[in-house]
């Protein structure tokens, strides 16, 4: 076995996905692969879609270029290209056919998108296998289980033609996985040339072909392979690598006890493992999570939790990213380790409060066990797993500021002229702030209704657009019901509606209340003209509004009450509504990248924002508007019942280094997190820096290659941000006092 070469191998690992090189004799180039896959799909067009997709999967896996490299512990897939996956044209065709023939509300969907009222796309981004169940099965065990259930359905007379196609799709797919493992293995043996590492890798691949993983390395390889087959061959995003510390602990414990691997060898295997995602380097990062609490109430932080965090710290990469499940029982030492990393600028970590998870999930009718064992996936989304596996799609990103524009224009979007709102009357009819607020909620309600209508329209056909062959086989409930796990086959099949601009909308409402209805400095009609001119000639008014103390995020009751009201309104309109997959809708306060994209489609707004500027993200205030310190910010955030946003409830916090310096700073920081969690806060993440450091990094990027910024559930390197984005973080940092 060859250990102790990580530093030498790091160059290969960095390049592995960024600039991959493959031996052409191992398969087809991607362009050819893509065209031939599409041609094959056309040939097979008479077959059911799960079978067509499975045959395409098979064609890609058989013909893609591969590599098994002595600089690595994990094989390479030549079909990897994050922007151009070979199955995409086939799936595009599936989608076009379904949309053209079955989806009714295409025009409405398009209008919502163009106006920036809500951004909807068909989501296949959040599949997570039932890791705990499939690790003991291994790939052959998954295939066997598929066959067992097929027979069961056959014998009980439920093997309909549709179910038959569903099972056939999975069988073809998993048979092909086994075949591909053999392909990798042969190449490993051929390339081995005395390399102990490749011989060990070949043995691992043989084992995974024949059975379940037996040790830490094989388990890591299994997780990696599932991810690669899932994302790059089957084309469904695998949005969590699982709770690795708990998932792999039995293997780790056994390996150490038996001397099969030493601790330092396991550390190194994790280094190689994490470097796969560091090299892929998707901007949204790739997650796994640590921690949690067991049924007896004991913390699940174990030796592996510390080890993984230490290795991740050492690599100093923005992705993978790690979510930490935190409760009152979480050891201080573990929290401190994470907080020290963040303090040094390695901030690709987010804390999830178990108390809040329980509050939110049981509120949806899930069990305490569901909440305790839930997967954290994506940025900070959470979903039940195991027998009660939950599959959640993210469909729609509600623009909280658009409702205000629509009130000003009586239901018509000023940017596009599209009538995406409702008629809420002429502005002079809105005699009180209450009238305005009611009109605003009517506009929001309309967008929410249309969003649900459009999504339910196409979500009926998810399994025809992208049958989840590879994923379904990992979900027991799917096999039992013979339903696609991404579509209707999970135990919970929920759909989330995200939002962006929550804080911006609250500030806009506060400005209207203060300047139009209280101080009576201008009428709504005058305000409309000023906004239409993008504040031209009214910079003074804009400055006064920006300087007003009434901003969300400062613990100001007069603003926070609307945070609470608005959250309840959104929650009531969305949560529990039936979706088209036998599940329900859930509101989410997560903004992903939409706080930028929807901002571009939104004109100037009464909060002082200029046309096209980004809006606030998540549950956070407008950048720089929270000037009263972090306790006031949290006071504002917990004035909202997290139960209103069962999809997600994230808060972004920026701290000055001096506020968290020393052991005392760490202790205070821990208390801050526990306080937020005790008030049912869910996700919280931090940036710790001062303006001077950021300014220096802007001027001397070479000195700050490792400096990371937490964006919105993922990290980026500061020096890679556009100057304008850098400026925003610097401005923000300037406003947090030492």
């Amino acid at each position: 076995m060859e250990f102790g070469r990580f530093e030498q191998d790091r160059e290969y690992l960095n390049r592995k996905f960024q600039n991959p090189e493959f031996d052409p004799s191992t398969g087809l180039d991607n362009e050819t692969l893509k065209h031939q896959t599409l041609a094959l799909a056309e040939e097979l067009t008479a077959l059911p879609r799960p079978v067509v997709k499975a045959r395409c999967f098979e064609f890609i896996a058989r013909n893609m270029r591969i590599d098994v490299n002595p600089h690595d512990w994990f094989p390479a897939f030549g079909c990897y290209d994050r922007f151009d996956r070979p199955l995409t044209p086939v799936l595009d065709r599936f989608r076009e056919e379904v949309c053209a023939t079955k989806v009714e509300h295409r025009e409405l969907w398009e209008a919502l998108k163009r106006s920036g009222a809500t951004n909807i796309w068909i989501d296949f981004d959040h599949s997570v296998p039932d890791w705990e169940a499939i690790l003991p099965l291994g790939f052959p065990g998954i295939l066997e289980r598929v066959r067992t259930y097929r027979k069961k359905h056959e014998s009980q007379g439920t093997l309909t033609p549709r179910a038959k196609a569903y099972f056939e799709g999975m069988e073809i797919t998993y048979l092909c996985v086994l075949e591909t493992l053999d392909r990798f293995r042969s190449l490993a043996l051929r390339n081995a040339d005395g390399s102990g590492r490749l011989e060990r890798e070949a043995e691992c691949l043989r084992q995974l072909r024949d059975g379940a993983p037996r040790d830490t390395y094989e388990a890591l390889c299994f997780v990696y392979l599932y991810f690669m087959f899932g994302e790059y061959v089957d084309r469904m995003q695998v949005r969590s690598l699982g709770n690795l510390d708990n998932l792999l602990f039995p293997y780790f414990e056994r390996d150490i006890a038996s001397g099969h691997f030493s601790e330092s060898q396991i550390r190194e295997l994790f280094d190689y493992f994490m470097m796969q995602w560091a090299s892929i380097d998707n901007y949204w990062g790739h997650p796994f999570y640590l921690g949690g609490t067991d049924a007896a109430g004991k913390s699940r932080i174990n030796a592996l939790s510390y080890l993984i965090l230490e290795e991740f710290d050492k690599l100093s990469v923005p992705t993978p990213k790690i979510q930490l499940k935190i409760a009152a029982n979480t050891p201080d030492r573990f929290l401190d380790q994470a907080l020290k990393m963040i303090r040094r600028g390695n901030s690709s970590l987010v804390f999830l409060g178990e108390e809040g998870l329980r509050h939110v999930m049981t509120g949806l009718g899930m069990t305490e066990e569901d909440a305790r064992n839930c997967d954290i996936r994506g940025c900070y989304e959470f979903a039940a797993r195991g027998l009660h596996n939950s599959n959640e799609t993210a469909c729609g990103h509600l623009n909280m500021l658009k409702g205000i524009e629509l009130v000003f224009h009586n239901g018509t979007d000023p940017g596009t002229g599209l009538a995406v709102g409702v008629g809420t009357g002429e502005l002079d009819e809105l005699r009180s702030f209450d009238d305005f607020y009611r009109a605003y909620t009517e506009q929001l309600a309309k967008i929410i209704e249309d969003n649900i209508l459009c999504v339910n329209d196409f979500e009926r056909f998810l399994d025809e657009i992208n049958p989840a062959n590879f994923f379904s086989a990992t979900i027991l409930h799917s096999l039992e019901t013979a339903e696609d796990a991404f579509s209707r086959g999970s135990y919970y099949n929920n759909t989330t509606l995200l939002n962006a601009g929550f804080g911006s909308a609250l500030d806009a409402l506060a400005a209207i209340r203060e300047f139009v209805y209280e101080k009576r400095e201008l009428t709504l009609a005058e305000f409309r003209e000023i906004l239409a001119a993008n504040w031209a000639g009214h910079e003074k008014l804009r400055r006064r509004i920006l300087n007003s103390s009434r901003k969300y995020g400062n613990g100001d009751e007069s603003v926070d009450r609307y945070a609470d009201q608005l959250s309840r309104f959104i929650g009531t309109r969305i949560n529990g509504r039936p979706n088209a997959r036998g599940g329900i809708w859930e509101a989410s306060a997560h903004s992903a990248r939409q706080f930028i994209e929807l901002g571009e489609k939104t004109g100037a707004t009464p909060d002082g924002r200029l046309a096209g500027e980004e809006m606030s993200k998540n549950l956070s205030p407008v950048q720089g508007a929270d000037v009263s310190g972090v306790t006031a910010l949290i006071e504002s955030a917990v004035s909202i019942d997290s139960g209103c946003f069962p999809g997600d409830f994230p808060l972004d916090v920026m701290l000055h280094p001096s506020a968290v310096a020393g052991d005392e700073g760490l202790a205070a920081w821990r208390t801050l997190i526990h306080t937020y969690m005790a008030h049912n806060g869910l996700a919280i993440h931090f940036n710790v820096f001062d303006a001077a450091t950021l300014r220096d990094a802007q001027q001397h990027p070479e000195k700050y290659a490792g400096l990371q910024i937490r964006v919105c559930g993922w990290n980026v390197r500061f020096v890679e941000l556009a100057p304008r984005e850098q400026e925003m973080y610097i401005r923000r940092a300037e406003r947090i006092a030492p």
Partner: protein
Amino acid sequence: MNDTENLESQVTGRYVEVKRFAVHDGPGIRTTLFLKGCPLSCIWCHNPETISGKPELGFHESCCIHCGECAKVCDCHSVSATEHRIDRKRCTVCGKCLDACMFGALELYGKTITPEAAAELFLRDRMFYAENGGATLSGGEPLLQSEFCARLLSLLKRDAIHCAVDTSGAVPWEAFERVLSCTDLFLYDLKSIDPVRHKEFTGCDNRLILENLQRLDATGIPIEIRMIQVPGLNMNAEEIARAADFLAARKHVSAVRLLPYHALARSKYRAVGRRDTMPEAASPSYEDLERSAAILRERGLKVIHSLELADGK
């Protein structure tokens, strides 16, 4: 509700700032109220806006865009494209210019507050105080407003808030007496053990300060001593050793905290139009502080300093 709760206090406090999530003004997460006015004028003062007991207009030059809005409402301001002057002799801090400024360049130092309103501010952060956090009164010298402090602390004690008072000690003992019953911890400055040098650095000798410290020690309330460390001024070994001897003879000194000097407050001197007296000294290094710490530790004193507490990186 009893009758006294309906009575607004006659006494009010004058303050500069309320700092929330204060983590270095006593244990845990604290809220610190910085009161205005100080009997000392330390040359290294990093809160010069708290020295004068009167309200002052703060001007943040970097925020000013020379728009001239302030000059339109008050002729104490004269603003040109390149310069913004304030006639501080005539300024009565009437506050009109504060409302006119749209860029946050003007600030009022010395707002007035009742003890009841101040208590409200502290209680807002109550959920963060957990087991050991709480309220700290600082300044300036909070005990120059000892009646206000006493009333405020007694209000906080009704809600069982942990209370700390950060004092220079340069006030009559009667001021201490007013707050003793409601104070859980004193943060007590010792700037120099030598009376002559103390006068040179702060404008007055340390006789009263040392006397008060002895009397305070006799009350049994824990005292954390805070010693600012300015290289070249008050860090010589002999002086630290004398301070250590004095402190070691006290019974209730819970710890000595060394505060490294930094010259980051110069812009605040400009903001209040005060002559910048900050020494041209560098901040002490970890080793510098450890030298002082070693002398104090030799006498059995517990020493903490922020550089020691840092992450080591």
